[in-house]
């Protein structure tokens, strides 16, 4: 049985532990042993994207060390896992000690849904969800890791779930990490454009694979007074989208 180290992304750990448990359940159902190293904090992306490469390197070393013994490192986020896969090796370019370790980690790191389908060969899940959903392709997962067909394949096997595609599903929702607080007006226009496309589908649920984007969209929906449900895809696939959606209160 492959030993998987579950990467507890910052937002999942703080805001939405259910996503972590959903990920663990899906991995265990796929035949993996799941462990969660306690010596983890953040992948370092906030530092990296803010130009503080030293800080990013320091945190990357921490992640590399914490996850060195696992067959795979899997996380429920395209954004964080793209950092592990693509950015860590770049951060240690020319460093003979860390570069090979970063590359070894990168090669074993996967976004949750693409790991389930592409590595474990999972093509269906045993879950049910009553509703019409639409799926937002988060940018890092989509363009960095090629996550596109995998969530749709798995969602297609959820009993009672109907997927309806929105226009411009591949266009950024305006989150962008610190971008959304540094440039709130621009981010606001982008999320409004996105939500107009979501609304046009008539779906009652919005799904995605990155909590940053989901919190951005859910936060804006709540502010607009919308009652559209927002879940991480893993929650639906694990049959754990039973309580309140993101930003909905009492579960």
């Amino acid at each position, binding site marked *: 049985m492959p030993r998987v180290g579950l990467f507890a992304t910052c937002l999942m750990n703080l805001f939405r532990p259910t996503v972590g*448990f959903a990920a663990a359940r899906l991995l265990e159902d796929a035949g993996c042993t799941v462990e969660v190293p*306690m010596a983890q904090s953040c992948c370092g992306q906030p530092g990296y994207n803010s*130009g503080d490469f030293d800080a990013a390197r320091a945190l990357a070393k*921490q992640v590399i060390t914490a996850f060195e013994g696992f067959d795979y490192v899997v996380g429920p986020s395209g954004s964080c896992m793209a950092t592990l896969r693509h950015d860590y090796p770049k951060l240690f370019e020319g460093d003979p000690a860390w570069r090979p370790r970063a590359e070894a980690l990168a090669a074993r790191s996967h976004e949750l849904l693409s790991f389930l389908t592409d590595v474990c060969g999972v093509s269906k899940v045993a879950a049910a969800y009553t509703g019409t959903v639409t799926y937002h392709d988060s940018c890092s997962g989509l363009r960095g890791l090629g996550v596109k067909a995998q969530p749709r394949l798995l969602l297609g096997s959820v009993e009672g779930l109907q997927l309806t595609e929105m226009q411009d599903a591949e*266009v950024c929702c305006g*989150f962008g990490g610190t971008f959304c607080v540094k440039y709130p007006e621009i981010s606001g226009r982008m999320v409004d454009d996105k939500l107009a496309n979501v609304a046009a589908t008539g779906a009652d649920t919005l799904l995605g694979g990155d909590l940053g984007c989901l919190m951005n969209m859910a936060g804006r929906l*709540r*502010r607009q007074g919308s009652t559209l449900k927002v879940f991480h895809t893993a929650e639906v696939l694990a049959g754990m989208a039973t309580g309140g959606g993101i930003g909905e209160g009492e579960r």
Partner: protein
Amino acid sequence: MDVSSPRFKEKAVIALANPTLRQALGQSRKGFVNKRAELVAALPEFEALRDQARDVKNHVLENLDHYLERFDSAVTAAGGHVHWARDAEEARNIILGICERVQARTITKGKSMVSEEVNLNAALEERGYTVVETDLGEYIIQLAKEPPSHIIAPAIHKTKEQVSDLFEAAHGGPRKTTVADLVTEARLVLRDKYFKADVGITGGNYLVAETGSSIIVTNEGNGDLTQTLAKVHIVTSGIERIVPTLEDVSLFLRILARSATGQETETYTTLSTGPRRPGDVDGPEEFHVVLVDNGRSKMLGGKFQDMLRCIRCGACMNHCPVYGAVGGHAYGWVYPGPMGSVLTPLFVGLDATYDLPNACTLNGRCQSVCPVRIPLPELLRELRHQQHQRGISPPVQRRALGVWRFVAERPGLYQFANRLAARALKSLGGREGRLRHLPFAGGWTALRDLPAPEGKTFLELWQARKT
């Protein structure tokens, strides 16, 4: 051109509140994006062509001195002249010198971003020359006295109604209201200018080292009239726009129009090789190429060399959601959108351009369509890195990053802080499960609620489950 990039935020907010701009931008961009997607889907080898184009450009950049010398000799052999301009001022002076020598009065211009970059029009007008932009978009913004807001569609920010107003004011009525009538009117006005022109200035999409030809592609044919009817033809181009052979040009022609406007090919592709030869029925008496460096050679061999592959197609801005929201003028200089956010800091300096590399979500859509595969998000991040190293990023951000790093480097402390935050935010969120206001997070809560956490962190729950 003045650099107003320091006012990016302010100009962005004004642009966001402008419904006319939103309407103008929305329509044309959507057209470009959809048409490109259709054509790319219909050309199975498109991705391979992008690889080839990237490789040819890389090869040229690795051997730029060689190809520039070859181009110089080929132009000279064809009877033309090559001038080397280290910076904008030298470029202006070279062109002013030519215009003065031939006692020019009227100067027609095809679209050239380099001439915008070196602020040529203002210099020419200051000396009393009549300068007429002949590209329809450029003509419109010349009438409006505005800089371009897009590198291939300079007047993309204008609606048809605004163009009607401008034409009515400039040409006298009757007011034209359909696109066809507006175009006809511009044609008639411009036709006359071509014949009067003493000097025609164009850009150069490609400079062919093998033959000394400069090539322009247009949809209006205005470039052809500009360069063949004037007595003197001056090409302004960046030094990086060289390609080795005509064979290579055909590769770039296949990707340029598809990427730029979503056409299989532009309507006119025109080669100029030297001045009119004995026996030629038309063509200019003099042919000059002004090769502009203006900061480009400094990019060679460094972290930003990839940017020199740019073929100025505009696909990155057509697909950029930030550009789509704020338009081109907010960027504050000649080049907007993703490519401009890389080039402007490099050309005018990091200090005046803080926002440009930062006003980006790094969503990567630009890179995914760039025909020469420029890793734009990576270059923007590298600029952020340089800002950080040089202490240009705001002190608040630097302090926050410092605190974040201190805590995140200590997983025990980090988890403790998270447990506290999860509880505090959960209770602030109350039954509704969301926060409307949050001190220090005004940027978030100005437009959105903050979804409240579930109350305990994943790691503590996981640990509890296991014991």
